């Protein structure tokens, strides 16, 4: 589904990713861990199409298309979704309205009819229930005045409505309380399917108890240093990142 090859990315002349390789197949769940500032958010932003990153070499192929040639909205239409580490507040833009616009833009692009307003609201309510998002959040401005945890929950709610093929969750677990973590993880698990892939960026092994990954990667110094299964996360928790670098 996603093939990142020898990716080099700089920001303001500073090299962040230095030849990163990553292959993700449909049906898989990947976890990416790594020290602060390693470039995890950079990778997810580059996949989602954010400006301001200089891609000096390498390629990203998504479902046989050159992802780097696509605009952020085209990527969204093709099924790429990023749950942001720091979701931005957008006063004046209604949460439900944003989703409706997003869903319909995608449908239009796929040559489908717009969703009937009633059907759309049914879906929205159902998905809000899935992540136990209070319905009052539906009519509020996007993330405005939401607590840190509420913003994260709202990201997963949006993911549930938009039904992406490739979901990148950038530290969605950070800032969630214990119950919220369980609920959000439950929501993510319900979205697992053989034709979808999930990439979770996280600092905590705890999340992986709820959402079991097929692969765990360690990103440090701009490349994937090590790849393993769930047990790698346990080892990391015990030994820290220096251990990875020493035991490549």
């Amino acid at each position, binding site marked *: 589904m996603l093939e990142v090859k020898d990716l080099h990315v700089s920001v303001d002349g500073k090299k962040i990713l230095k030849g990163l390789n990553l292959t993700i197949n449909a049906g898989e769940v990947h976890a990416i861990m790594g020290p602060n500032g390693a470039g995890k958010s950079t990778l997810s932003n580059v996949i*989602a*199409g*954010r*400006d*301001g990153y200089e891609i000096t070499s390498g390629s990203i192929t998504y479902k046989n298309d050159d992802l780097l040639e696509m*605009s*952020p*909205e085209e*990527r*969204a*239409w093709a099924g790429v*979704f*990023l749950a*942001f580490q720091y*979701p*931005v507040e*957008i*006063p*004046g*833009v209604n949460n439900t*309205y*944003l*989703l*409706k*616009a*997003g*869903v*319909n*833009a*995608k449908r239009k692009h796929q040559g489908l009819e*717009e969703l009937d*307003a009633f059907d759309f609201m049914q879906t929205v309510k159902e998905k809000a229930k899935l992540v136990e998002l209070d319905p009052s959040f539906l009519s509020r*401005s*996007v993330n405005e005045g939401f607590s840190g945890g509420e913003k994260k929950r709202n990201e997963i709610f*949006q993911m549930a409505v*938009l039904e992406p093929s490739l979901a990148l969750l950038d530290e969605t677990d950070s800032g969630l309380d214990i119950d919220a973590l369980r609920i959000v993880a439950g929501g993510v698990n319900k979205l697992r399917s053989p034709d979808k892939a999930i990439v979770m960026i996280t600092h905590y092994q705890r999340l992986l108890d709820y959402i079991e990954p097929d692969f765990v990667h360690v990103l440090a110094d701009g490349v994937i240093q090590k790849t393993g299964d769930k047990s790698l996360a346990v080892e990391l928790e015990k030994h820290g990142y220096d251990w990875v670098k020493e035991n490549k």
Partner: protein
Amino acid sequence: MSVLTQTRQDALNLFEKLGLPTQRDEDWKYTDASRLKDLLEPTPVDENIHIKDMGITGLDAYRMVFINGLFAEAESNLPEGVSILSLAELEKNSVGDDAEGIAKLFTVDTQAPLINGFNAYNAAKASDGAVIILADHAILTKPLYILHISNQSNVIRHSFMIGQHAQAEIIEHFISTGDNKALSNSCSFVALKAEAHLEHSRIQQEGDKQSHVARVQVKQCKKSSYTFHGVELGAALSRTDLVVNLHGEGASCDLNGLFVLGGRQHADHHTRIDHKAPHCTSRELYRTVLDGRSHGVFNGKVLVHEGAIKTDSNMSNGNILLSKNAEIDTKPELEIYNDDVKCAHGATIGQLDDKQLFYLRSRGISAEAAQELLTFAFADEVLVAMRNQTVRSYVEKAAFAKLPHSDDLEEMLGS
């Protein structure tokens, strides 16, 4: 000479003394009023205006219509038991002691801030206006919608006197027909007694050859509250002086302004809030969205007087320039003469936020629609404070129509 005639004559003398403001006046630095000189004279009613279906439709309100500055009684619908009168009628029928009271309605307070020649001219030559006297404890059960329609120069002068504990909502709407070059010169005087409340909207939507000069002067007694919504969508040139005197302890005002301009439009609001008593609150939010070669001017001055302790004042002005030829001059000013106050003010001029744009696009909204959506949301935030949803959605639609918008966005907002 009767006291009324004398008062009018005094105003005319004052006008002759003051003349029209020039750009050498600090308060008129950015607005050239000289071209309005020949448009001052009010022209009587033109019977050719067809007013059916004009203005805000579907509004459940009492209604007062002014055509070229004259009250059109036949088009109006006024509540019973509330004193809502025509200034011209009052003037015509005034005798003896009455006349003195009515003369007061034409008196120019030369000590008030931002007084200018237009204001003096208004007092001298006003054709008509609404005089509203709401008794203590009275509640106007429906909003009063004052629709001004013009195709000629007009001079209009309103007085809104709201009694103790009384409440009202007044919407002034200005539209024009035809494409005459004409000037509307409008003054509204607001007096709020103790614990009175008024929500006051002014929606200026005149034609693109028209000019509009306005003064809104508010005096607030103890614990009264005043909410203002000033919307500038129309006219080639418009200027409003909004002067609020927080005179009684615990009074509060909430001033909201929105300009959506394009082409060569020019709009200027000078606002002045005087905190004269303790424990008063003022909040001001002004936003402009400027396209084409349009020019916006915002000057917001808050003056906290000695003794006005526990003043709480917050002013914010945001501006978005959609074209590189659009221009904004903004100046929030704060003068404080005591220590015990909480004041914040600031202005921003900018393009849209990159992070917000990316967020919307990452959810599948096209770059173009995302920009338009954020622009609309930016403007719409000023309108959130508007409690009347019919008026708000009317203004939203009118503002939206003036903003660049693709079919995509129209579809999205429409459905």
